[in-house]
């Protein structure tokens, strides 16, 4: 068994890490979040230059043939820096859905995603927590190049700004879930845009008999794409947890009350210990599950365990970080609350920890 990052992965981490430290510190990130731009076009171009946008795609498709552990290697850093760019939606989800399809139009979209020229949103959530593809209700009429979509998708990251949207919907009444491609500006498409609590540009998108192209996909392919996205999102969450442990540890050793650093109080010290335990557990499960997925051996139970653990433990670490910081932990000014909101979002999307734990318990 080998669970370490390879030298190449370490180099990628070093490169991406240096860039983010220089150009994506917390102040820069907040400026971006508070601007009108949905994300940073400059950062996106940098990601393209690092090869991140090409990473998961095969070489024949203009990609780099990277593995899931390659993605996890840098996604931890995305979490550490609270990166808001729609990597998960455009590359991991929509990009992978397009890439696995034999459709000619889909291949062109992959090329445009890889080059950084286009961003494609991914529409999955239908409200009230659509935890898994089997719970998707939206149903497409027709098939092939003449499919039609009606219904609403929520929390579509980049839904109002993307060049196209890949929608997960059923193939006819009672049919299996499949991917459908919709171009931006299509008739009947309406996006209501908003910013999420974790600083991302999202939209609730309604479809009123919108023309769509079906992208063939097996049920296994749909599941694998969602599972890989859960792993990468979990890596982001674990990166955020690590940042919170470090920031909170430092704060507890500098902040003085009653004449001494608050870290000297056992109640505070034990909360720091619990934060580190939670982070370590989540990271161990992230790394092990990544290695399982890389070997093609990750089961739905393994993914549910990862999603549940990262959701529960991330939320706990965020709440402990705010409590340890006291009043300033409640402010918008400090990064602490922003990490916490990112962790809340990670817990809630693709099914929260309560859902996934019950799935594990059902056996």
């Amino acid at each position, binding site marked *: *068994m080998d669970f370490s990052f390879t030298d190449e992965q370490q180099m990628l981490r070093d490169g991406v890490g240096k860039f983010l430290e220089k150009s994506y510190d917390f102040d820069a990130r907040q400026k971006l979040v508070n601007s009108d731009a949905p994300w940073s076009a400059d950062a996106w171009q940098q990601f393209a230059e690092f090869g991140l946008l090409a990473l998961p795609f095969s070489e024949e498709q203009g990609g780099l043939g990277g593995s899931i552990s390659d993605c996890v290697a840098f996604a931890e850093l995305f979490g550490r820096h609270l990166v808001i760019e729609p990597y998960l939606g455009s590359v991991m989800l929509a990009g992978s859905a397009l890439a696995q399809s034999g459709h000619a139009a889909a291949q062109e979209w992959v090329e445009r995603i890889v080059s950084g020229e286009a961003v494609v949103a991914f529409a999955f959530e239908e409200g009230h927590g659509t935890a898994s593809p089997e719970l998707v209700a939206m149903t497409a009429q027709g098939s092939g190049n003449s499919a039609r979509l009606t219904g609403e998708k929520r929390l579509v990251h980049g839904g109002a700004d993307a060049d196209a949207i890949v929608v997960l919907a059923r193939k006819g009444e009672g049919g299996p879930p499949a991917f459908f491609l919709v171009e931006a500006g299509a008739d009947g498409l309406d996006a209501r845009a908003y910013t999420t609590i974790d600083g991302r540009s999202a939209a609730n998108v309604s479809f009123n008999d919108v023309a769509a192209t079906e992208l063939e996909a097996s049920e296994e392919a749909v599941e694998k794409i969602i599972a890989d996205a859960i792993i990468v999102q979990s890596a982001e969450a674990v990166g955020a947890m690590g940042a919170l442990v470090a920031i909170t540890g430092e704060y507890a050793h500098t902040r003085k009350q009653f004449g001494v650093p608050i870290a000297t109080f056992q109640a505070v010290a034990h909360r720091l*210990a619990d934060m580190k335990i939670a982070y370590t557990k*989540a990271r161990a499960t992230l*790394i092990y599950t990544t290695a399982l997925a890389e070997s093609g051996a990750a089961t739905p139970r393994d993914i549910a365990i990862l999603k549940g653990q990262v959701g529960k433990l991330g939320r706990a670490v965020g709440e402990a970080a705010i409590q340890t910081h006291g009043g300033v932990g409640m402010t918008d000014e400090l990064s602490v609350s922003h990490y916490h909101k990112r962790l809340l979002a990670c817990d809630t999307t693709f099914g929260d920890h*309560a859902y996934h734990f*019950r799935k594990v*318990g059902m056996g």
Partner: protein
Amino acid sequence: MKIEFAPELEAFRAEVAEFFATAPTPAIREAGRKTTSVFAPFKECMEWHRILYEKGWVAPHWPVEYGGTGWSVEQRFIFAEEYRKADLPPLLPQSLGMVGPLLIDIGTEEQKAKYLEPILKGEDFWAQGYSEPNSGSDLASLSCRAEPDGDDYIINGSKIWTTYAHHANRMFMLVRTSNEGKKQQGITFLLLDRIDYPGMEIRPIVGLDGFPEQCEVFFEDVRVPQSGRVGEENDGWSVAKHLLKHERGGGNAASPTLMRYCERARAAAAKTPSPFGGTVADDAVFQREIGELEADIASLGHFEKLAISGHEIARDPAFPSMNKTINSELVQRASVLMTQVSGVDGLARQLEALRVGSNVEPLGSEFDLVSMPLYLNSRATTIYAGSNEVQRDLIARTVSGS
């Protein structure tokens, strides 16, 4: 990153399972099913130890040159998983998991030659003399005294929570040899060749589960040779800290045992009617609880596998304390769930039925027989080997920011 699922591994699993299906005697199997503590019934446990020794599998985590198996991480986990599936008694940790690895690391050649083989063969069983009535979490305050006298030490004082001292033939212990300087500086680590030296007295303590698992050991002018010292005089604290790494870090993975408790709870829940209809296994709350518990146990397993593979996670100075904390609290949670499934059927005190070889039919199922004693005994897991409060203090010290 790589996890191997080579066909040889499945052959290895089959070999291990076959051995576990055939080698243990009925008494050893009964002892395994009736184990309600980290310490299995002594006699059958040592019989099983000797069978594993004959097979060459008694100390997978020891270096090969000292009798280890040289297995890969995968093989060690397969071994642990099959071991638990077969419900066999876990081997006792004091000799194989503590003093043995300690001597391999820092014992003299004479000590290694004298003590390691009898440990492997199951001829010797070592008791651990650390805690004292007034020195629990604050172990360094210990006062059991050893005065140099010629080539010997004369020991006076007492030790407590000395697990299975009434079964042991040897003992390792911490004694005070100086009161000067910091309290940690006057401690010496001793190996006692016998546990029946003149002046030694062992009194078992009956625990809340009804079993005499722990002991108190009294020393009155007990003369022991200085050759049993490990490390230098007054440097026993660093020896003890080294041993604690083995005690808390654990050479053997705990997660398969915990997963086995969940399997047993699930099987029992599937036969237990729920007041809300159906069985407890169908109940949403039970599913949610056992799912969360199994997810936490899975995370411990991932942590253990990363550690055994040499991942950086195990080089964290807080690793032993984190491992001990996670593991001990999961044992308690698993046992709580088990008693919830047993309900009132866990309230009968059935000490005779629990005794190996008693042939007393339990009142309910075998699950109900063990769930409450396991729960009661496992209250100790967050107390022993350094209470979890002490562990959290140690972990917090490593959280100092960037």
